């Protein structure tokens, strides 16, 4: 893995984690309303996978955390304004932080119903194919969401038409209070790829390199006309389902144990061993993240709310 890429991913992971922490503070302090499903523990796979995309590729992110947007390079100002449902964000309060959108970077937005992403991703793949482009679509989804029928239909549709779509499952062990082994009949969701004759691969989602490699390969296949792939990244949701979740449905021991697999120290050790990361760089990255977040929060706080009547805009083109 290229050193520069490795370090970039690191920076984005740190920025994501710090932003997530700040968002949680803002919400708990009642400074912003809104709804956030924190991605703490899953940033490594999210940032690594998105690092494998080209700028003109399409992205369908999932509902879990801020790292997708950070990794894709959407300005933090905008993300925070969407969180606060203020002007200055990407959707003018229409969709909040669950519908961050960024056409310039192929960020198509989010479906409020889980699994709504799969057909949309397939359609973006169809566009690419029909227009003869060499772009790809990366579509994130959770273990719980893998049980929606839209997954099946879309996987098959992409496979029979050889559409350039990479399906990336973040298997974090839970869907709200439902553990994966009770929601999902198969041990490895990647095995479902066999039902569509597409490649399916399991990787450790807390290992940046594994994710980057598997997703890059899947993207390369898609880009060269070999059709869709399924990658399953095993990870864990370290925080509750949403900010404020009592998280009463799983044991503290389980969560404690998983904190020992927190991808950040793992990655730091690895980058340290490879002499990519020094204590000085680390502090610089942290300071830079803090500064970026401070600036963005300040920007957000100064932004106005949308005009009430603007609720009537943006429906028809």
């Amino acid at each position, binding site marked *: 893995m290229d050193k520069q890429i490795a370090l970039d991913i690191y920076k984005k992971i740190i920025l994501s984690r710090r932003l997530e922490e700040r968002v949680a503070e803002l919400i708990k302090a009642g400074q912003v309303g809104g709804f956030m499903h924190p991605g703490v523990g899953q940033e490594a796979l999210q940032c690594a996978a998105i690092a494998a995309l080209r700028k003109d590729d399409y992205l369908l992110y999932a509902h879990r955390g801020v790292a997708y947007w950070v990794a894709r390079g959407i300005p933090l100002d905008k993300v925070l304004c969407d969180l606060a449902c203020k002007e200055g964000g990407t959707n003018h309060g229409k969709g909040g932080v669950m519908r961050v959108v960024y056409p310039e970077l192929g960020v198509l937005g989010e479906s409020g119903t889980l699994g709504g992403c799969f057909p949309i991703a397939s359609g973006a793949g169809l566009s690419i194919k029909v227009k003869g482009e060499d772009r790809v679509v990366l579509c994130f989804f959770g273990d719980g969401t893998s049980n929606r029928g839209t997954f099946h239909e879309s996987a098959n549709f992409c496979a029979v038409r050889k559409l350039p779509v990479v399906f990336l499952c973040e298997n974090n062990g839970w869907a709200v209070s439902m553990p994966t082994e009770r929601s999902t009949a198969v041990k490895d969701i990647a095995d479902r790829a066999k039902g569509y004759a597409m490649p399916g691969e399991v990787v450790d989602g807390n290992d940046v390199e594994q994710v980057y490699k598997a997703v890059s390969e899947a993207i390369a296949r898609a880009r060269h006309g070999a059709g869709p792939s399924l990658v399953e990244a095993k990870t864990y949701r370290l925080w509750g389902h949403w900010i404020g979740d009592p998280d*009463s449905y799983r044991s503290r021991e389980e969560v404690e144990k998983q904190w020992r697999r927190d991808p950040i120290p793992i990655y730091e050790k690895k980058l340290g061993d490879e002499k990519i990361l020094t204590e000085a760089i680390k502090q610089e990255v942290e300071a830079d993240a803090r500064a970026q977040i401070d600036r963005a929060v300040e920007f957000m706080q100064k932004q106005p709310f949308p005009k009430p009547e603007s609720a009537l805009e943006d429906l028809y083109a």
Partner: protein
Amino acid sequence: MRTISYAQAIKEAIEEEMRRDPTVILYGEDVANFGGIFRITSGLKEQFGEQRVFDTPISENAFVGAGVGAALTGLRPIVELQFADFLFTAGDEIVLKAGMWRYGHGGAYQVPLVVRCPSGAAGVGPEHGQCPESFFMHAPGLRIVCPATAADAKGLLKSAIRDNNPVLYFEHKLLYATKGEVPEGADYLVPLGKASVRRQGDALTLVAISAMVPKAMAAAERLASEGHHIEVIDPRSLNPFDRPAIIESVKKTGKIVVAEESYKTLGVGAEIGAMLMEQALEYLDRPLKRVAIPDVPIPTSPVLEKFVIPSEESIYAACRELLN
């Protein structure tokens, strides 16, 4: 009489009916181990066991359709959707399967299914905040229930569970915490299809649905203090729909306002307006007023949401206009 919350009333109804009838089961996402994301069903799994109260995968087609299949074969399933909006993800299972299975098969089977649908704008945006009752009021075969008070929440849900037809039971998220007097005893039922006159008056008829009822009552109070005594009618169910109750009231008042959280075009107010024009035209002395969402999705921002969702103020204003 004791006072309990709308949420508690729903739980009591489920609990009592499950105790009464072993064929009643309850399932949905996160209802068993977690007690539901709105915490209505906590403790029920412990009480009735994992066969009768269980969590499902995120598979709305399968589990709503399975509700139909289970109802055909002798159970009385109560299926919880996490948000009423997800009815659309199971559109076929709701409209064509639940609504039409009995009819299409010449009455050979009945479909005693209840689908619980948490509805209503609450800062959760276009796909989690709808009151989609009107879509389904158009569909033949589906009972549509939308309680506004704790007492009705309980009595109507119990009736819905005992009903032999598929019932979409809309529970408004903003009503969960509201409290009201609810009769004790497992025999307390509220029949489907009977409107409730929440307040009597002869100046104007105000029909209010679900979370609009408390807003309508507040508006009526204000109008009363100004000397206008209006009648507030809560239909409580939209199928069956108590048409005579509304027609009778309008014959007395000559004026009607409908307040609802549907999109305005083809919301419940449309049916009421057309019905009155068919059956009570000569009694109407002022135009219809529909207070509803102005035909846009529900925006996420509270500022925008407030603009589109009918309020006590907008209901009051509509009544005022007719009373002038």
